[in-house]
C-alpha cells in the first residue's frame, strides 16, 4: 500500500501584500499562484505523480446507439504490464450510475451505449501505451439501434426511449419520455398584444454545439489508502458535488473519499459533471496502486458535456413608436444522451428568453431533448447564451422594420431597476441596460483600413490574416450591438451555499489570517479575492489560502458567476465572526483600559484594533496572544423559488447581471472571411473586488463569444450521431490573431443585497459578444444569418447563383 501524499501539490499559497497597497478589496492585487504558474511549478492535475503509479485508460464506444452484445477482455488482461481491466460487471456496488441532477449516467456502459464516445471498459497498466494497446484488444460486439439526432426523430411516436422507466422529478410532467424537462413562461395575453403590434417579425435560429475547450485536459490521480478509502487529487469545479456522486459507486462513506483540488487548467462549465473521477478511484481500489488518468484532446472532446445546441423560433411585435408589444419563443435544446444539467439550462433559457427588455405579454416554451448526440450541460452562459443570440437578432430585425437605430430601439425597451421579469420577479437592483448601450455607442470607432502601412499591405490586419487571401479586395466594414441578461448563482429554489473556515493567529510575531474553503480555483482568481476580503475584514497583511479539499464544507460550484458572491460572501461572513470574537477577546483583556472598547464602533486595520474615529486601541498581536480564533460557517444568499411548471412564474433568480458589446468587423464579402477589428464591452459589476481580474473575465468571456460566432462548433453527423471533429485541428478556437482589442468599460452600481454590492461577472460577457459579432456581419453583408457559427459558405452561398460556371 503506497504511503504519503503525491508530490507536486501546490494549491494554496502564503501571500504577502505589497509594501504600499493594503491589498484589500477594490485593488488589483496580483494572483497568489502567479509565480508558480509562470515558472512551471504550479501542479495541475495532469502533473500529479506518485511512486509506483499506474496509468488508467478508458475504452469508448465507436457508435452512438447500440446494444452491447458482448465484451471480451481476455486478450487485454493477458498483455504484460496490465494490472486491471474493468467493465460494468466489475462495479463493486448496486450504485452504478451518477449525474448532477438526475442519476442517469452509467459509470461504464451497461448493455447499451447511448452516444459516441461513451465509456465501455477501462484498463490500468504500467505505461500509457500499454494501457492503450490493452484497450485496443478489448473486443466489444455492438448491435446497432436506431439513432435519434433531432426533435423529429426523438419525439416520433415510435421513437425508442433513450432512458426507460424514468423516475426523476420531471418525468411525470413531460409530454414525451425523450424530453428531459419542459418549462413554459407565460405572462399577459399574447393574442391580445399581437393586435396592438404595428410590426411583427419572426425568425428561426440555429445555435451550434460549443465546447468549453479548456486547455488542461481532464485528469486526476487516485491513491488507495490503508483504511480502505481513497485519496483523489482532481481538477474539478465542485469537490463536494463530485464526492456525493463518487462515494456511493465505490461503496465508501464520504469521509473515506478524501478529495483535494489539483491545479485546474480552465473549466467554463465542462468540469461540473464527473469525467474520470470514479474510474480512477475504482482502478486504484482494484489494483491497490495509485492510478493516474489523463485524457488526451481527442478523449477530452468525449469526456465532458458541451454547450446545448439549440433551435429557436421567435416572434416579436412592436408598435410604430418602437415599443415591444409581445414576445413568443420556442426553444429546443439538444441535451444528448444524458441529462447532466439540462433541466437548469431549460429554466435559464425560459426565464431569460426575452432578454433585458420590458415586455408585458410573453409566451415562451423551452424544452431539452434526450437524443443520441453527445451529452450537453453546463457551459459559461448556461442557456442564456443561446436565447441572447436569437432575441438580439430579432431586436435588430424589428429595428430595421421600424426604421429605428438598433441602439435607440433597444434603449426604448430597456429594462431598469424595478422592471418585472416575464417570470413576475421584480428586478430589485440596478439594471443599467440603456446606460451600457449608451456608453458603447459613444465610443470612437477604430480607424479604417488599418492594414495599410507605409510598408504596404499588412495581411495580418485583414480577413484571412497570414493566409494572404485579400489585400483589401471585397472588404466591407460592419458594426453591431447587443446586450444580454444572465442570472447569478443557482436558481429555482436550489439551496445554494458556501462554507468558509477562517482562522486568525499570531505567527512569527505577526497577525496572520488563514482562509480555507473548498472553492475550485479554475483560473478565475477566487484565491486572489479571498485574500483581499480577509485583509479588508481583518486588517492583516498576511493571508494564507489553504488548498481546497473536502476537509472543509462545500463551497458550491465554480459556475453560474457565483463564486465571488457566494464563497466570497462566506469568507466575508466568517471573517466578520472572527472579528467579533477577536474584539470580544480584546474587550475582555483590555476593555478596562479605554472606554472606547465598549462605546465605539471598532475596526481591525493595519494589524491593530482601531475605533471608527481612527484611534488605536491595541495591537492584534497582543489581543490574540498565543491562542488562535477560528470560525467555520455556511453562508447563503437569499432564497429563490421554483418556477411554476405551467406558467413559469416565480422569484427564481438571486441576481441578474448585464453586459453589452459593440462589434466592429471587416468582412471579405467574396470569400466570407471575417476579421473582428474591435469588440468593446460595457458591463455593470456592482463592485469590482479586483479590477484586473474583472477585466480578464470580461475579455475572456467576450472571446469565447467571438469563437461561437465565427468558428467553434462540434460537428455531429446527422445520420450516425458520431462526432466529426474531436481535435484542435478541426475544432477551432480563436488565436491571438483572431482576437481584436477588447476595450472594457466597467460600471459599479452596487446591488444592496450582495456582499460589497458585487455582481457576478464571469458569464454575462459571453452572452452579448456572439450576437454583436453577428449583427456586425449582417451590417456588412446585408445577409440574414440565422445560424451560429457563421461559416464562410454562409456568407457566400447567395452569390453562387450568379456564377455561371458553378451553377452549371
Amino acid at each position, binding site marked *: 500500500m503506497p504511503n504519503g501524499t503525491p508530490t507536486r501539490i501546490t494549491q494554496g499559497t502564503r501571500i504577502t501584500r505589497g509594501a504600499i497597497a493594503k491589498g484589500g478589496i477594490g485593488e488589483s492585487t496580483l494572483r497568489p499562484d502567479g509565480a508558480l*504558474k509562470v515558472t512551471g511549478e504550479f501542479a495541475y492535475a*495532469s502533473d500529479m505523480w506518485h511512486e509506483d503509479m499506474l496509468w488508467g485508460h478508458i475504452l469508448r464506444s465507436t457508435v452512438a446507439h447500440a446494444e452491447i452484445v458482448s465484451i471480451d477482455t481476455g486478450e487485454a488482461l493477458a498483455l504484460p504490464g496490465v494490472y486491471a481491466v474493468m467493465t460494468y460487471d466489475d462495479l463493486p456496488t448496486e450504485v452504478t450510475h451518477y449525474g448532477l441532477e438526475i442519476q442517469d449516467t452509467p459509470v461504464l456502459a451497461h448493455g447499451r451505449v447511448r452516444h459516441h464516445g461513451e465509456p465501455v471498459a477501462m484498463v490500468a497498466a504500467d*505505461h500509457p501505451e500499454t494501457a492503450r494497446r490493452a484497450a485496443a484488444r478489448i473486443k466489444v460486439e455492438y448491435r446497432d439501434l436506431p439513432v435519434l439526432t433531432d426533435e423529429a426523430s426523438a419525439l416520433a411516436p415510435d421513437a425508442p426511449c433513450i432512458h426507460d422507466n424514468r423516475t426523476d422529478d420531471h418525468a411525470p410532467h413531460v409530454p414525451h419520455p425523450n424530453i428531459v424537462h419542459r418549462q413554459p413562461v407565460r405572462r399577459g395575453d399574447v393574442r391580445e398584444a399581437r393586435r396592438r403590434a404595428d410590426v411583427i417579425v419572426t425568425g428561426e435560429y440555429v445555435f451550434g454545439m460549443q465546447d468549453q475547450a479548456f*486547455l488542461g485536459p481532464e485528469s486526476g490521480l487516485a491513491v488507495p489508502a490503508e483504511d480502505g478509502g481513497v485519496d483523489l487529487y482532481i481538477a474539478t469545479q465542485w469537490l463536494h458535488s463530485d464526492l456525493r456522486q463518487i462515494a456511493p459507486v465505490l461503496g465508501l462513506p464520504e469521509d473515506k473519499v478524501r478529495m483535494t483540488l489539483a491545479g485546474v*487548467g480552465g473549466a467554463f462549465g465542462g468540469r461540473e459533471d464527473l469525467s474520470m473521477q470514479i474510474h480512477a478511484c475504482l482502478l486504484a481500489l482494484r489494483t491497490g496502486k495509485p492510478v493516474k488518468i489523463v485524457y488526451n484532446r481527442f478523449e477530452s472532446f468525449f469526456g465532458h458535456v458541451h454547450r446545448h445546441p439549440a433551435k429557436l423560433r421567435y416572434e416579436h411585435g412592436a408598435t410604430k413608436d418602437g415599443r415591444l408589444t409581445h414576445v413568443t419563443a420556442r426553444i429546443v435544446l439538444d441535451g444528448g444522451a444524458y441529462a447532466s444539467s439540462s433541466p437548469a439550462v431549460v429554466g435559464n433559457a425560459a426565464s431569460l428568453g426575452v432578454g433585458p427588455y420590458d415586455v408585458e405579454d410573453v409566451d415562451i416554451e423551452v424544452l431539452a431533448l434526450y437524443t443520441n448526440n453527445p451529452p450537453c450541460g453546463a457551459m459559461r452562459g448556461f442557456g442564456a447564451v443561446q436565447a441572447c443570440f436569437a432575441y438580439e437578432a430579432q431586436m435588430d430585425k424589428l429595428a430595421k422594420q421600424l426604421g429605428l437605430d438598433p441602439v435607440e430601439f433597444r434603449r426604448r425597451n430597456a429594462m431598469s431597476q424595478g422592471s418585472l421579469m416575464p417570470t413576475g420577479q421584480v428586478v430589485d437592483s440596478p439594471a443599467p441596460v440603456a446606460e451600457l448601450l449608451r456608453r458603447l455607442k459613444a465610443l470612437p470607432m477604430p480607424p479604417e483600413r488599418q492594414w495599410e502601412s507605409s510598408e504596404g499591405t499588412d495581411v495580418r490586419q485583414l480577413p484571412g490574416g*497570414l493566409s494572404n487571401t485579400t489585400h483589401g479586395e471585397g472588404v466591407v466594414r460592419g458594426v453591431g450591438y447587443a446586450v444580454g441578461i444572465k442570472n447569478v448563482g443557482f436558481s429555482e429554489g436550489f439551496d445554494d451555499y458556501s462554507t468558509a473556515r477562517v482562522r486568525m493567529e499570531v505567527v512569527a510575531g505577526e497577525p496572520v489570517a488563514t482562509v480555507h474553503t473548498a472553492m475550485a480555483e479554475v483560473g478565475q482568481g477566487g484565491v486572489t479575492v479571498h485574500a483581499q476580503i480577509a485583509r479588508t475584514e481583518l486588517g492583516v497583511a498576511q493571508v494564507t489560502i489553504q488548498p481546497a479539499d473536502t476537509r472543509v464544507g462545500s463551497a458550491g460550484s465554480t459556475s453560474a458567476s457565483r463564486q465571488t458572491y457566494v464563497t466570497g460572501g462566506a469568507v466575508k461572513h466568517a471573517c466578520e465572526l472572527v472579528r467579533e470574537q477577536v474584539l470580544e477577546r480584546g474587550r475582555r483583556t483590555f476593555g478596562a483600559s479605554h472606554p472606547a472598547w465598549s462605546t465605539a464602533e471598532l475596526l481591525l486595520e493595519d494589524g491593530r484594533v482601531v475605533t471608527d474615529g481612527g484611534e488605536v486601541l491595541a495591537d492584534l498581536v497582543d489581543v490574540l496572544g498565543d491562542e488562535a480564533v477560528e470560525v467555520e460557517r455556511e453562508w447563503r444568499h437569499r432564497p429563490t423559488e421554483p418556477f411554476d411548471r405551467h406558467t413559469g412564474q416565480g422569484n427564481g433568480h438571486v441576481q441578474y447581471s448585464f453586459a453589452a458589446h459593440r462589434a466592429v468587423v471587416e468582412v471579405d464579402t467574396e470569400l466570407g472571411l471575417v476579421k473582428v477589428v474591435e469588440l468593446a464591452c460595457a458591463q455593470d459589476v456592482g463592485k469590482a473586488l479586483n479590477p484586473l481580474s474583472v*477585466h480578464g473575465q470580461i475579455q475572456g468571456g467576450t472571446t469565447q463569444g467571438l469563437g461561437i460566432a465565427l468558428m467553434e462548433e462540434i460537428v455531429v453527423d446527422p445520420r450516425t450521431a458520431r462526432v466529426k471533429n474531436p*481535435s484542435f485541428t478541426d475544432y477551432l478556437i480563436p488565436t491571438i490573431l483572431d482576437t481584436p482589442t*477588447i476595450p472594457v468599460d466597467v460600471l459599479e452600481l452596487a446591488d444592496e443585497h450582495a456582499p460589497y454590492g458585487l455582481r457576478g461577472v464571469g458569464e454575462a460577457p459571453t452572452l452579448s459578444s456572439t450576437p454583436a459579432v453577428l449583427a456586425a456581419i449582417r451590417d456588412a453583408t446585408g445577409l440574414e444569418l440565422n445560424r451560429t457559427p457563421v461559416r464562410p459558405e454562409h456568407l457566400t452561398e447567395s452569390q453562387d447563383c450568379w456564377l455561371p460556371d458553378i451553377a452549371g
Partner: protein
Amino acid sequence: MRVHFTVNGRPQRADDVWEGESLLYVLRERLGLPGSKNACEQGECGSCTVRLDGVPVCSCLVAAGQVEGREVVTVEGLADHARQRSDAVSTDSRRSEDGELAPIQRAFIDAGAVQCGFCTPGLLVAADEMLERNPNPTDADIREALSGNLCRCTGYEKIMDAVRLAVARQAEGV
C-alpha cells in the same frame, strides 16, 4: 531505448523510453519537468513549447529519440536562460527585484496575463524567444509570434499587455 540530452543546461539521461514517446512525455514523466503542458498533443496549441537548440518547437511533436545530444530549454529554465542572455549583452548584471524570474515571467504576473495558467509556460517560451529576436515588436508582430499558442481564459488582451510591458521594461533597462 536510452536518450541523452541537455535540459536547461544540465545533461540528462532517460532510460526505457518507448520509441513512440514524445520529448514532452520524457520531460514531464521521466525527468520531473512537468512545466511544459500537454494540452493537445498535435501541435495545435503551443502549450508544450520548448526551445530545441534555441528554436521554439512543440515538444509533443518531437520524438524522444530525435533529441539525442541536443539542447532543450523549458519554462523551468527560462529565468536562467534570460539571465544569461542579459549578462551576455551587458556588464551591468543588475537583477530584477525578485531575481528569480525572467522579465517576461514578471510581466505576465504584473499584467494579469495568467488565469488558469495552462497556456502560460508555452506562451512564455515563445514570447521570450520573440523578445530575443525582435526587441521592438509592433502589436502585429507580437500577435504573429504568439499565433501558435492558444489561450482560452484571457482573450489575449492581458497577454498583449504583458509582452508590451516586458518590451518597455527591456527598453528602460529595468
